């Protein structure tokens, strides 16, 4: 294992049993919820407390985009604000780069916020009385960087988001999509390792949103940043997220890759969510393939070696194209030179539909993690 792999496993943000309860009798409410399993509604009634975030533990690793998906009121906006202590947790620990935020004094917390963990807002929050360049330079201005230096850095980040010609304009002159790009440029100027994105694209129209999603993912990956991305849109989470957490009523009910969540929803709530999601680019050969030995036994007249070959990571879209173009009865899935399974038209149809393959999928699935 080389050092870059070790680096990729480094945990940048970590939450351990974090609670946020709004109200007066916080400790009683947490105790009632954690130890006696009292429902959220009952706690509001008994203690007058609203549970925002309930016993959340999560880890964000270096270089990954971690999406938190939930509907309004699910506590996702509260959760992301706990990560830079805009909201103080009622219980539990939040660690950023190994430092417990609760133990930091004012100056140390400001340093973490200004240098290590940036934030982009749904409302963008561009200061209306400042030019675009001055807005983008804001973070460095706060850190006391000289005007010349911070404007140079701001100009560079404006170039990254393709708005270098707009530096002298004012926020009011920009469209919503451009404003959100400026918001992104502002956070990039301070060069933090972690970017918190609080529903940044929710207010944009679908076309611009897609464009920004792709740009954001490209930028984050090319700059090697980690991001926590809040969204209420599962498709957005799937497009962007390396891992996705599904949140409901303050609780994270499932964490996993997009494929995990779509193929193996943890409960009916998640299943409902993923029902409408297209599987074409999500589901991969290894999840739908049948065992090749059994298939060969049932189809003795077909030579396995003559079948078109695909890898286990090929998605349904590729497999369908390959099958149609070749006109073969099935596809042979090969990994490391060894056949590991076959994908038949039935498997493909099942995959598109959302059910797993008739046989063998459950046996193969655990290997996905490795």
């Amino acid at each position, binding site marked *: 294992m080389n050092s870059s792999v070790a680096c990729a496993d480094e945990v940048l943000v970590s939450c351990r049993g974090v609670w946020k309860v709004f109200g007066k009798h916080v400790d009683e409410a947490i105790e009632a919820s954690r130890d006696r399993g009292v429902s959220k509604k009952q706690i509001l009634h008994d203690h007058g407390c609203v549970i925002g975030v309930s016993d959340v533990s999560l880890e964000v690793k270096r270089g990954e985009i971690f999406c938190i998906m939930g509907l309004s009121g699910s506590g996702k906006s509260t959760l992301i*604000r706990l990560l*830079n202590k*805009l909201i103080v947790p009622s219980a539990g620990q939040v660690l950023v780069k190994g430092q417990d935020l609760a133990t930091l004094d*004012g100056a140390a*917390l*400001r*340093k*973490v*916020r*200004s*240098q290590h963990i*940036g*934030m982009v*807002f749904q*409302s963008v*929050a561009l*200061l*209306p*009385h400042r030019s675009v360049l001055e807005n983008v330079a*804001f*973070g460095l*201005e*706060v*850190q006391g960087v000289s005007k010349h230096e911070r404007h140079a850095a701001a100009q560079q980040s404006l170039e990254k988001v393709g708005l270098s010609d707009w530096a002298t304009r*004012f926020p*009011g*002159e920009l469209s919503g999509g451009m404003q959100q790009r400026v918001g992104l440029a502002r956070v990039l100027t*301070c060069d933090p390792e972690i970017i*918190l994105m609080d529903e940044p694209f929710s207010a944009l129209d679908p076309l611009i949103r897609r464009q920004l999603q792709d740009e954001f993912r490209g930028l984050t990956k090319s700059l090697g940043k980690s991001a926590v991305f809040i969204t209420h849109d599962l498709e957005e989470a799937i497009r962007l997220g390396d891992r996705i957490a599904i949140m409901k009523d303050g609780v994270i009910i499932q964490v996993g890759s997009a494929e995990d969540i779509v193929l193996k929803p943890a409960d009916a709530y998640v299943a409902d969510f993923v029902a409408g999601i297209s599987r074409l680019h999500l589901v991969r050969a290894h999840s739908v393939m049948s065992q090749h030995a059994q298939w060969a036994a049932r189809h003795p007249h077909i030579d396995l070696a003559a079948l078109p070959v695909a890898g286990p990571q090929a998605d349904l879209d590729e497999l369908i194209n390959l099958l149609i173009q070749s006109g073969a009865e099935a596809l042979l899935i090969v990994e490391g030179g060894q056949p590991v399974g076959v994908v038949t038209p039935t498997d493909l149809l099942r995959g598109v539909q959302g059910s797993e393959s008739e046989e063998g999928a459950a046996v193969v699935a655990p290997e996905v993690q490795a």
Partner: protein
Amino acid sequence: MNPSTFPSDFDAAVDAGLEWLTDSSAHVFDFINEVLTGLVQALNWLLNLAPFYVVAVLIGALAWRLSGHWRSALLTITGLLVCAYIGLWSETMSTLALVLAATTLALLVGIPCGVLGGLWPKLDGVVQPVLDLLQTLPPYIYLLPAIALLGYGSATALVATFIVAIPPVLRLTALGIRMTPRSFIELGEASGTSPAQLFFKIRLPFAMPSIMTGINQSLMMAFGMVVIAGIVGSGGLGEAIYGAIRTLDIARSIDAALAIVILTLILDRLAQNATPSQREAQHESH
């Protein structure tokens, strides 16, 4: 306590208290009197330093610089020359001195108090009832005690004008500071601002339009007190009007009223053009 004698007892107590205050702290009030009178006189001296046409042109130039239109400069100069040609130049300047002194003092007290009130709602809860009292109390009520303490003259006039000028700027400053949009506070905090940076870089710029409106309103309130201040010996246009009313010199009272209106309009325009929100609007329209 006997209910029938209560009113007279109360009056006696107030009189005794006031007497005690004038006797025991006479030197304090004399000192305040001297400082305030000195302030108004110094401003008055400054405004009378140059001939009237020079002052008119200077104020006109200021109007042109703030508004960017030569027309408002021309109107300003014309208005001031009218004040001079109706023979009320020195009265106009002395009223200007009084209003500027009172407004400046009101801003010096009102803006910092407003900022503190905006930042700490509890303090605001104490200040607001006091302001309500100041604004509902008829000025005549505090004029008499003020005369008793500071005597007849420009010091009392200044204090009376100062009292009415404070509430608008204080209230609107507190409001402006309190109304900073939540998302911008979050932006500041998430960017790692210190409390001072959050105030100067985020809260204050957002509060500026409100504060400027407050300054303008305070100025207008101060002008509204000019005639009443004339009763307690402010000198200037107020006293000219008061004198004209007493002698039923209608023509002269109208002249003085005209001068007050001209002066008020000019200062109102100046103050409004100085607000940053208007400059921004102009910037966007270009």
